[in-house]
């Protein structure tokens, strides 16, 4: 270790912290415009097409644990995302009985290496929820402002879907959607009976080629492993690698940023300091503009840790709003067994990674006892066996007649049991609700006064409680799931989650859609950023990750992060040209 601080001689036009969706987009747009960009990533280099990283198209038996979860990859041995809910040497803490879990992915592309590629635009109502239900806050910008950027993201990144003309689920410029799988026909039918509309899914997967740099989908269903053909959206393959190719980006991996440095006279940012995660050397990178995209909570942590005489409460935090209004999507799930799908004919139905269908929010909250909506994601099919396959057969095989038509005792062993696994294969369905929580100042992350990580950086402490709004929404999800399962002729697994478990409502953080910690707004007293993702308190500081969100819709956040980051990049270019920053 060295305490000598290393400074490269150059001052960059822009220093970007984080290489995920927000940082990748900003790096790409700013570099294309000619800016000299330093892109800092806290984790290692990653390219899904480099054989040394590839887990795609590997077989379960290539992993000694058959793909089970590990501390190094919480979503299993083949998932692309390194890291997870706990990272050795990088703790976070909780208070007030909080259950918040924080997923971090330390690698190029960040958490775009692990996501469902569900790419939904926010709708007009999602930017003005307070005007509709009196809760939370309206955004300082509206759908029409963001729509041109959604269009550009659609064209640059690619998304499949079907134009359905729904009022609050605006259509993208779609590539053709893949055809439904068998269980998806069943679910669509069941949805019709249960009054839940089912549409083709909207995923950023290339069902047709869109340029010469990226291939198209070859239907292995493994987007979560990273695509060596670059046929899905990951920030690494679609944004960061092309950004580096412009020649204007200096990418530094293993750069764990400590704080944003500021000028004591002007209060403006002058660069950042970081520690090299592997060598533990200390560095400073100077830049005229600093763009934070380290993830909602990590960017808030950075601002709060950037204290100075000029910014005693942390940078861009005179409002004391940084860290507050933290909210994740709600999530609840249910699975079911469908007897009529037993003894299925075998064929390859891998399809794309994720469901080919989904259900956008279909009801009017004014007629319900909770204020915000949710969408439903579906699962099922003859997937690749891996760790967990066949688990719990003793809970199922006593309930249905065997191949000979006779009932048998649950559990068992031998040839008859072996045959059960074959007969039950592909006969399960699952569904998950993903809903909007109401942002509240009472849910927040703050700097823990007593704990530092292994680099000596003060860590985050979380305080978060679901309210009745979210709990009642989860109850509605469970009721809906049962209606769909019943209409599908399925038998729901286990017992229905009840009030004692908040109706199966996942702990906050578990859906990995947390946003809101550096929210935008017109009033510097109640927001960290203005409507251009620019800090009220320091005009050359921007935050372009989910932290800027005023409210998370009943959608997934990535498409909106990408659109807002592109818009903020255009604003930066415009402001530099006008010599305003």
């Amino acid at each position, binding site marked *: 270790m060295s305490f000598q601080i290393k400074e490269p001689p150059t001052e960059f036009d822009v220093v970007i912290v984080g290489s995920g969706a927000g940082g990748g987009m900003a790096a790409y747009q700013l570099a294309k415009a000619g800016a000299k960009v330093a892109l800092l990533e806290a984790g290692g280099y990653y390219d899904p097409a480099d*054989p040394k990283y590839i887990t795609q198209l590997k077989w379960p038996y*290539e992993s000694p*644990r058959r793909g089970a979860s590990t501390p190094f990859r919480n979503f299993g041995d083949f998932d692309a995302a390194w890291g997870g809910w706990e990272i050795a040497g990088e703790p976070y803490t909780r208070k007030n009985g909080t259950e918040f879990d924080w997923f971090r992915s330390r690698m190029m592309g960040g958490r775009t290496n692990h996501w469902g590629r569900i790419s939904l635009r926010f709708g007009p109502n999602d930017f003005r929820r307070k005007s509709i239900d009196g809760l939370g806050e309206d955004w300082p910008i509206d759908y029409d402002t963001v729509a041109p950027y959604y269009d550009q993201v659609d064209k640059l990144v690619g998304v499949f879907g079907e134009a359905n003309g729904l009022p609050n689920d605006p259509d993208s410029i779609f590539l053709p959607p893949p*055809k439904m799988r068998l269980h998806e026909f069943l679910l669509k039918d069941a949805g019709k009976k249960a009054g839940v509309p089912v549409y083709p899914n909207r995923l950023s997967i290339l069902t047709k080629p869109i340029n010469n740099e990226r291939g198209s989908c*070859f239907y292995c269903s493994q987007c979560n492993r990273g695509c060596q053909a670059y046929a899905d959206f990951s920030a690494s393959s679609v944004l960061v690698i092309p950004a580096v190719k412009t020649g204007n980006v200096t990418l530094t991996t293993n750069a764990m940023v400590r704080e944003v440095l500021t000028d004591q006279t002007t209060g403006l940012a002058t660069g950042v300091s970081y520690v090299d995660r592997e060598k533990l050397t200390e560095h400073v990178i100077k830049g005229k503009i600093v763009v934070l995209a380290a993830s909602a909570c990590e960017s808030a942590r950075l601002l709060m840790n950037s204290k100075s005489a000029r910014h005693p409460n942390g940078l861009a935090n005179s409002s004391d709003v940084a860290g507050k209004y933290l909210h994740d999507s709600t999530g609840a799930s249910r699975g079911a067994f469908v007897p009529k799908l037993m003894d299925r004919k075998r064929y390859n139905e891998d399809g794309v990674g994720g469901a080919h269908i989904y259900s956008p929010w279909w009801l009017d909250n004014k007629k319900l006892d909770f204020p915000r909506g949710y969408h439903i994601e579906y699962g099922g099919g*003859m997937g690749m*066996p*891996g760790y967990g396959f066949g688990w719990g057969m003793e809970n199922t095989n006593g309930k249905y007649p065997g191949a000979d038509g006779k009932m048998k005792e649950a559990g068992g062993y031998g040839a008859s049991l072996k045959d059960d696994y074959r007969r039950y294969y592909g006969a399960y369905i699952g569904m998950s609700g993903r809903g909007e929580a109401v942002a509240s100042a009472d849910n927040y992350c703050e700097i823990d006064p007593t704990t530092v990580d292994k680099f000596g950086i003060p860590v985050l402490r979380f305080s978060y409680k679901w309210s009745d709004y979210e709990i009642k929404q989860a109850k509605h999800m469970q009721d809906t799931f049962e209606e769909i399962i019943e209409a599908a002729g399925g038998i729901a697994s286990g017992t229905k989650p009840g009030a004692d478990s908040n109706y199966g409502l996942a702990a906050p953080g578990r859906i990995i859609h947390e946003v809101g910690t550096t929210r935008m707004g017109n009033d510097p007293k109640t927001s960290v950023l203005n409507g251009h993702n620019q800090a009220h308190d320091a005009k050359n500081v921007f935050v372009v990750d989910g932290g800027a969100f005023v409210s998370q819709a009943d959608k997934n956040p990535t498409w909106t992060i990408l659109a807002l980051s592109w818009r903020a990049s255009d604003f930066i270019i415009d402001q530099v040209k006008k010599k305003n920053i």
Partner: protein
Amino acid sequence: MKRRESLRALTLSTFGVAAINPQELLAERRELDKVMGTPPAEVGFGRTAEEAVHDAKLMAEKYFTDKELATLAILSDIIIPADSKSGSASQSGVPQFIEFMVKDQPYWQTPFRGGLQWLDRESQKRFNKVFTGLSKEQRLKIVDDIAYPEKAKPDMSQGVAFFNNMRNFTATGFFSSKIGIDDIGYMGNRPNVWDGVPADVLQKYGYRYEG
């Protein structure tokens, strides 16, 4: 990369790297590394350096005794025997899989070791021999008392819990092996073009694509 090129590259990589058993590959590389004094090698499925080191360390350890492994092999073959379609659990490597898993997820160690002890104790009580020394009929007499959770006698509950674990690990280990994947008939994990559910299947379930 264009689609056709990417398909060709994929086929090559699956034949090249995937055909090699990663454990063997790693063991070979470990020997090589020891001789060459180089850092531990990565196995062929995208491991990071810390993952490769972690897995190599686990593989170098031994948890179960040979006697315990022999019992695991017998039990796994009772649960999934060879039949006209495919081989048995032990032929697919289930005992080695369980050996790795209890080192990887150590909270399984006591349930397995204790369950195996429970089984030997029960065998001694009934037949004066440990489980591996019993005849096929004697083994099944005990297994029949612990393999059916809903009709098992209350004083067999610890045995039932152990056998449930054993059944689950055997099923997962077998059907995620090459033998098991062929048996279950999974036909994916290869580049292809998805053009919907086959016509005969659609017809059987009464569905059709619109438009």
